[in-house]
């Protein structure tokens, strides 16, 4: 990448201490040595199945939880909580979060104007009039009528609620937004509206996004680059066109082959066998090797390191 990245994650690891079935202490490695950069005005799509660690990465980036090791920098400043918390509040307002569940992420007892203005109120220093003007401006930005202000979240549809959530995320004029499955709870006809809104907002405010989703087609419609996660690691990342046209990691290929296409004439390839392994007892080699149709003896013993197989294309596979 030419310019300095907006946000950069280097070798981040997140380990959660958990209890096993018989109460024993175990370490769950939810994120395992993950690195990526997101450039100015760029969207990185982070895809993976449940338990892949993609949401944990989103929470690490916005500082909801601290990293175990590795570093996260925003415009070159460390924000991973390792270097003291003091300067974080000024940095963190430059990062915002849009949640998956438009029903659960808005306080049902708060009016829409208070929901949207909550970040402004916490930041402080606004007159009553400036606050009201800003709320109206934010509502218009996300395509909601100004008459919404004194209504409550339950009066809105899922799509409209997600617009409220986006308005709130925009309140402090962030440069970077983590969108964690922002359209997966929505109907198809609403999904397209919200995806397009996020694209429009990106153009207008030069926003950078980390767009987390399990739906590969949704990610293709919004991201410029894509990272594919499996069992805590990024197995492949690169420009989206390359990834979707020529997946280099067998898991990426299997994922793309598994999606039922809206085309009855097209035969889906047979399903990938097995399930995502428990990350409590990972195999010593490649975590995907137990399901991989191409796995060799080496794959089962030696974990593959991510390497750049072509410019901008990083794959963690011995066979790529």
């Amino acid at each position, binding site marked *: 990448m030419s310019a300095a990245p907006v946000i950069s994650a280097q070798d981040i690891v997140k380990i959660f201490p958990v209890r096993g079935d018989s109460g024993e202490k175990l370490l769950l490695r939810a994120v395992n040595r993950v690195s990526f950069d997101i450039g100015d005005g760029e969207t990185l799509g982070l895809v993976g199945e449940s338990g892949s660690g993609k949401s944990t990465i989103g929470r690490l980036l916005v500082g909801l939880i601290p990293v175990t090791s590795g570093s996260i920098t925003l415009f070159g400043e460390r924000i991973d909580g390792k270097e003291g918390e003091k300067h974080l509040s000024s940095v963190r307002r430059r990062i915002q979060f849009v949640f998956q569940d438009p029903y659960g992420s808005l306080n049902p007892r708060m009016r829409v104007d208070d929901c949207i203005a909550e970040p402004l109120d916490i930041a402080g220093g606004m007159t009553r009039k400036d606050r009201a003007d800003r709320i109206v401006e934010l509502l218009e930005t996300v395509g909601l009528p100004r008459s919404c202000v004194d209504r409550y979240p339950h009066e809105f549809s899922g799509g409209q609620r997600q617009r409220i959530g986006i308005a709130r995320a925009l309140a402090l004029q962030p440069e970077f937004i983590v969108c964690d499955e922002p359209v997966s709870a929505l109907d198809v006809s609403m999904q*397209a509206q919200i995806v397009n809104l996020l694209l429009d907002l990106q153009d207008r405010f030069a926003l950078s996004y980390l767009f987390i989703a399990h739906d590969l087609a949704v990610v293709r419609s919004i991201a410029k680059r894509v990272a594919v996660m499996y069992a805590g690691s990024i197995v492949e990342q690169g420009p989206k066109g390359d990834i979707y046209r020529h997946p280099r990691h067998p898991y990426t290929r299997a994922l793309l082959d598994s999606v039922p296409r809206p*085309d009855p004439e097209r035969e889906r390839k047979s399903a990938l066998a097995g399930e995502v392994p428990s990350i409590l007892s990972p195999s010593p080699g490649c975590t995907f090797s137990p399901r991989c149709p191409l796995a060799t003896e080496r794959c089962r013993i030696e974990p593959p390191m991510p390497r750049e197989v072509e410019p901008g294309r990083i794959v963690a596979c011995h066979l790529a």
Partner: protein
Amino acid sequence: MSNLLEINNLTVQFRGEGGWFTAVDDVGLGLAEGETLGIVGESGSGKSVTALSILRLHTPSTTRATGRILYADQDILTMTPRRLRAIRGREIAMIFQDPMSSLNPVLTIADQIGETLRIHQQLDARASRQRAIELLDLVRIPDARRRVDEYPHRLSGGMRQRVMIAIAIACRPRLLIADEPTTALDVTIQAQILDLLRDLQSSLGMSVVLISHDMGVIAEFARRVIVMYAGRVVESSGVSDLFRKPLHPYTEGLLAAIPKLDIDVDRLPTIKGSIPDPAQIIAGCRYGPRCAIAVPQCRVEAPALLPAGVSRFARCPPRVAIP
């Protein structure tokens, strides 16, 4: 030959705070032996309500269902409770979206599969446990002999859905109703479950009603498709025709709005507005307020489901009237 399942003029109303509202309005469909029918629609379209009605699973005190649901020429809506119990789980089985809340957390897998077998086939505990193991093998759960004694929380989402399918096929039903069977699952597991359902359907010769919001799942699985919107059938068609040339503007809009996996697009086409609230009363065509081709008449007169070619129907006079 008459259809295995034939629904005529089904209307389902629920009692809400402001009185009765209509969730399903004048729905009709037919399903032949061995056939697969897909019902597709978004939230509030009435697809799940229609499915639940087939087994009369709504709470009677807050539900009114009228019309006819003929299963093997007997009307389910007027059937005696005794006769209905004999059909449920034996001739017509159902699987749901969320396998965790459909399984009882304090009973073992053997108990839960065995329940159906003991009730409908009068098997004793030993025989039903043996049969449960066979069924787990059939739905491709590895190590069935050990798994049969486990509790649902020990199983992954995909394995739980396999258990649900094992319960559903335990008595070799003639009709399987699958309501969003793969929606809660990861995409690689969804592919496994769809493969399993297809294999079981052909080996057992079941008819299947598959309910889904996912056009990809419908395209892959169904032979005939019914598209529902706001409680009504807006289009009914063979699967190839539907995807090649959708007739109703809603079907067209829905297909266009699906994010594309195989090509890059700058912006997705959208359908304007939102899905109407079920309690909201809309004059004329319910899709009218969102429709790009609506004519003044659409706002006044509720359109009928009109024939539009060989076994095709669409509820859109402007589209169907033009040759």
